[in-house]
Structures are given as structure tokens and as C-alpha cells.
């Protein structure tokens, strides 16, 4: 990469194949750089595409009125409200389970059990979300009807492994010296966890939960069988089917009406803006926590 250095190296004679080494080195760095650029580029293309096509239909009416099934004047307020409730319910179910799982694996379980649990969580994380949807459908919808509860349960199943795994990573960063200090003072294990481990790692735990929220907000497959046949009005009762943004995007894009197509892009923009905002908050928090934990090492 540094061409000027390449020209003359006073010690060059001591290194055989110097030229070849440099070319190989540059090739590796170059391909790694290219890979990273493709990743960043993809995100930019997706975001830019959604913004370009969606921004035109974003206006106060779009955000504040429910879907109009026939005309083109409606918006997606019903879906925004529904998604907010679905994600809140899913978080209420998944955050306690996920964080307790993380605490159990890193603070209480034996090493073997912990590594088994980590594996199970990785598998759960890898389960295709359409399967999660069918599972919840069989469990909560068959014989009853679709509902907000069922949708939230599906999203919660997606969230639990994310929260638990990221929680484990953060808890592993808490220096063991702090646990020992607390135990040596005569504090019990749970007290040590409550008073020392959790306060030290809280930022990271919240980060994990936020990233899971961002992920759940956009999940479509778990809602497909559980929370997808909804009315075009604002619905807040989770025992009924809650309108939501991902399914709305799907329905709008299947519609023959070009106005609805534009609204699908706009709904996508709302969703992606939410996800980006949440990820950014999560990132700030995580940077702060990590810095603090690193200083303690």
C-alpha cells in the first residue's frame, strides 16, 4: 500500500521474496477492504432505496390516520400503534426471560451446563422465524383465533436468544475480581449479582435488549400466521389481532394500486428509521459500558 516505501528498503536484501510478500499482503488487505465495503454499501443502497421511494408519501396524515382500504388517503397509524404494542408485549415477555437466562448461564450454572445452554440458545436463534410462526400458530391460534398475544409470543421467541446471548457476552466482561470482592465480604451469590454484577453491566444488558427490540419490530414471519388478518382501524386490545407494520408493508405491496405501493415504501421507511434509531441508542450505550468495563480490567 505504501508505494514510497516499496521503492527502496535499505534492509530489503535481508528479506527474501520481499516483493512477493508485499504483493500478497496488499492483496489480502485489499480483499478484506472490498468485503467490508460491500457490507457497508449494501446497507447504504437499501436505506437510500427505501428513503428515495418512501419519502414522498411520508406526511402527517400518513402517520396519523389508519389505513384506508379503498381510497388512497389513508395512512398506517393503526400499524404503528399495533407494532408498538406488539413489540412492548414481546419485550415484556422476552427481556426478563432473556436476562435471567444470561444471569443463570454466566453466574450460577456449571461450566458444562453453561456451554450447553449457549449452544441451545444459538440453535434457537437459528430457527427460521417462519417455523417459530407456525409453532405459535399451532400453540395459540389453532382452535382460537389470531391475536396480539400470539403475535407477541412469536416475536418474544425471536428475542429471547438474542437478549440472552448478548447478555452473556456482557456479563463475561465483568471482572471476576468484583464478584470475589463481594463474596469475600460475606454477600451471597444472588446478592452479589444484584448489587454488583448487574449494576456494573446494566448498560450492556439494555443494549442487548434494544437490539432485540429493533429486530423484533421488523420480524414478519412470526406474525404471518398469528397476527396478520387485521382491520383497518387503530386497535389496542392484544386479545384481538393487532395491525402491524411488516404485514402492512406486505399487503400494500401486493395491492394493485400504485398509491399503495408508494405507501408500502413509506411504511418501510418508518420501520427502517425506527430500527436505525434504536440501534444507534444501543450502540452509544454499549460503547459507554464497554469502555467502563475495559477500564476495570
Amino acid at each position, binding site marked *: 500500500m505504501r508505494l514510497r516505501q516499496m521503492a527502496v528498503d535499505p534492509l530489503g536484501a535481508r528479506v527474501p521474496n520481499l516483493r512477493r510478500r508485499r504483493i500478497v499482503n496488499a492483496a489480502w488487505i485489499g480483499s478484506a477492504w472490498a468485503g467490508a465495503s460491500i457490507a457497508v454499501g449494501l446497507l447504504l443502497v437499501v436505506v437510500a432505496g427505501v428513503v428515495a421511494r418512501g419519502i414522498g408519501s411520508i406526511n402527517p396524515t400518513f402517520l396519523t390516520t389508519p389505513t384506508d382500504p379503498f381510497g388512497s388517503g389513508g395512512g398506517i397509524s393503526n400499524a404503528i400503534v399495533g407494532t408498538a404494542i406488539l413489540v412492548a408485549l414481546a419485550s415484556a415477555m422476552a427481556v426478563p426471560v432473556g436476562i435471567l437466562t444470561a444471569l443463570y448461564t454466566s453466574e450460577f450454572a*456449571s461450566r458444562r451446563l453453561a456451554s450447553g445452554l449457549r449452544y441451545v440458545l444459538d440453535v434457537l436463534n437459528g430457527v427460521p422465524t417462519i417455523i417459530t410462526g407456525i409453532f405459535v400458530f399451532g400453540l395459540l391460534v389453532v382452535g382460537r383465533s389470531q391475536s396480539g398475544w400470539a403475535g407477541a409470543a412469536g416475536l418474544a421467541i425471536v428475542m429471547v436468544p438474542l437478549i440472552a446471548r448478548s447478555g452473556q457476552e456482557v456479563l463475561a466482561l465483568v471482572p471476576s475480581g468484583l464478584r470475589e470482592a463481594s463474596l469475600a465480604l460475606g454477600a451471597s451469590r444472588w446478592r452479589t449479582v444484584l448489587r454488583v454484577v448487574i449494576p456494573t453491566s446494566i448498560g450492556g444488558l439494555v443494549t442487548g435488549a434494544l437490539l432485540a427490540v429493533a429486530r423484533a419490530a421488523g420480524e414478519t414471519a412470526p406474525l404471518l400466521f398469528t397476527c396478520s388478518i387485521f382491520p383497518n382501524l387503530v386497535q389496542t386490545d392484544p386479545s384481538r389481532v393487532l395491525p402491524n407494520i411488516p404485514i402492512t408493508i406486505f399487503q400494500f405491496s401486493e395491492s394493485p394500486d400504485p398509491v399503495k405501493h408508494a405507501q408500502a415504501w413509506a411504511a418501510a421507511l418508518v420501520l427502517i428509521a425506527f430500527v436505525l434509531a434504536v440501534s444507534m441508542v444501543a450502540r452509544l450505550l454499549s460503547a459507554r459500558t464497554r469502555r467502563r468495563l475495559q477500564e476495570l480490567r
Partner: protein
Amino acid sequence: MTIDRKELDAAGRVRHETPPGPRTEVPAVDRVGVEHGASGSRVHLEDVKAYYGTKRVLHGITLSLEPGVVTGIIGPSGCGKSTMVRCINRMHEEVPGGRCEGRILLDEIDLNGPEVDVVGVRRAVGMVFQKPNPFPTMSILGNVLAGLRFVGVPRERRIERAEAALTDAGLWDEVKDRLSDPGVSLSGGQQQRLCIARALAVEPDVLLMDEPCSALDPAATMRIEELITQLKRRVTIALVTHNMQQAARIADVTAFMLAGELIEVGSTDRMFTDPQDERTEQYVTGRFG
């Protein structure tokens, strides 16, 4: 210094009719430096073996820590010094697979007895670690109060106990105007004294110090050493150190360990000038380790 003992007794701890005397296979501790009226408890280890999983790391240690005395424990890295002191407040149990055999008596109480709860042991036997480890989310005062909260000292008594502990740790004058600053905002030496204050606040009978100065600069080390010398009248002190000069400076009794065995124990003067065992001599003269 009696509260914890009362708790131990109230909990129905095992009591032994006759406190064991010094064992013959190990030279009796020279009772140098024992001050009359020194409080603190006597700790007696009898044939203590410790294991991590199937690996035995202590091969039967018999040793007494006397009240009013700083017992220095020296030996090369990995010889089991830390493990031995961790057995005394049962911190070895926090290492997966860690267990110990043999008897460890705190005065007459068998610390590994079936009725003895580990929490009571740790309140009676405090510990200071190699690296200063104040709780990062707590203030200076909060750190000292933490142990008192764990112990269940009534709220109104905690502050005075905390002040007393900070004073005893020689830190009060330096921090009295910034008690609500984070504990981790202090310098390394101050942090270590904060950790000592935190351990003293719960009024232990024994204080185990596992290389408390090895992360500190010479000036901070000197302060801690002065502190140890002052504290020994109140609390029985075991000082693990890999620094032989430190042992020579402040330990009254020195124990030399090698490969999980206690090789020799005696007054520090004698250990450094007239060691009985050849290996002790080689170690203290710097020929290995």
C-alpha cells in the same frame, strides 16, 4: 469485633473441647511480636489439602496464624500461597472444582463444619486482593457501606462504622470531602486502602491479604505496609507476598511454601538469617523462585 462471632455461635457452630496445640512436625511458631491484649482470632490449619478438580495443590498444610502477629507467606509463584489463604475464608469454593480437606479452626470453630455457613465464615475472615477492586458503580462511601449492608448493620449505625473503617485504613483525611465520588476515581494505592476499609468495616477477626501491594508503586506500598503494622493489634493478618523484602519488613512470622507444602515457618528474623531447611535458605537468598 464480637458481632460476627456471636452470629457464628448463635448459628450453633461446632465447638471443639480442646483447641489443638502446635503440631510437632512443623516448628512451633516463635511467639514474637505477639502483643498483650491483641484482639483478633487464632486460625489453625491442620493437615489442609486443597484440590482443583482432581489436581491436588496443597499437600497437607499445618500452620497457625496468631493474633497480634502478621504472618507472611512467601514462596515461588504457583506454590499454593493464595490457595491456602483462600481456603481460610472458603473463597477456594468459588473456583469450579475447588475443595479442601483437613481442619481449619477459627479459635474453636471448624470453618468447614457441617453447620457453618460460608457467609458467616467470610464475615469473620475478610480478604484483600492483589488488584484493588472497588465496586465501580458505588461511591467511596458506598464501597465501605456495601459490606455493612450485606451484613445487615442498621442504617443509622452504618455511617459511623464506615467513617471508623476509613479512618482505620488511613484514608479518611484524604477522602472525607469527596465521599460521594466514585470509588474508582481514587489512585491505585487509595483504592487498595479503600478495599481494606471495606473489609475492616464488617469487623472481621482475621484479614487475609493476597499480595495486596503487587499492583502498587513503592510509595503506596509503604503506606499499606504501615497500615498493616498498625492493624495487626486488632485483627489477625495473613500476608501473602512474593516480595521477600516486604515479608522481612513487616511480617513477624514468616512461612515458606514450595510446591503445595509448608517447608518452614518461624520468626521472620530467624527465617531470613538462620533458616533450618536448605530450600528455605536457597529461596530467601534468591537462588531460586
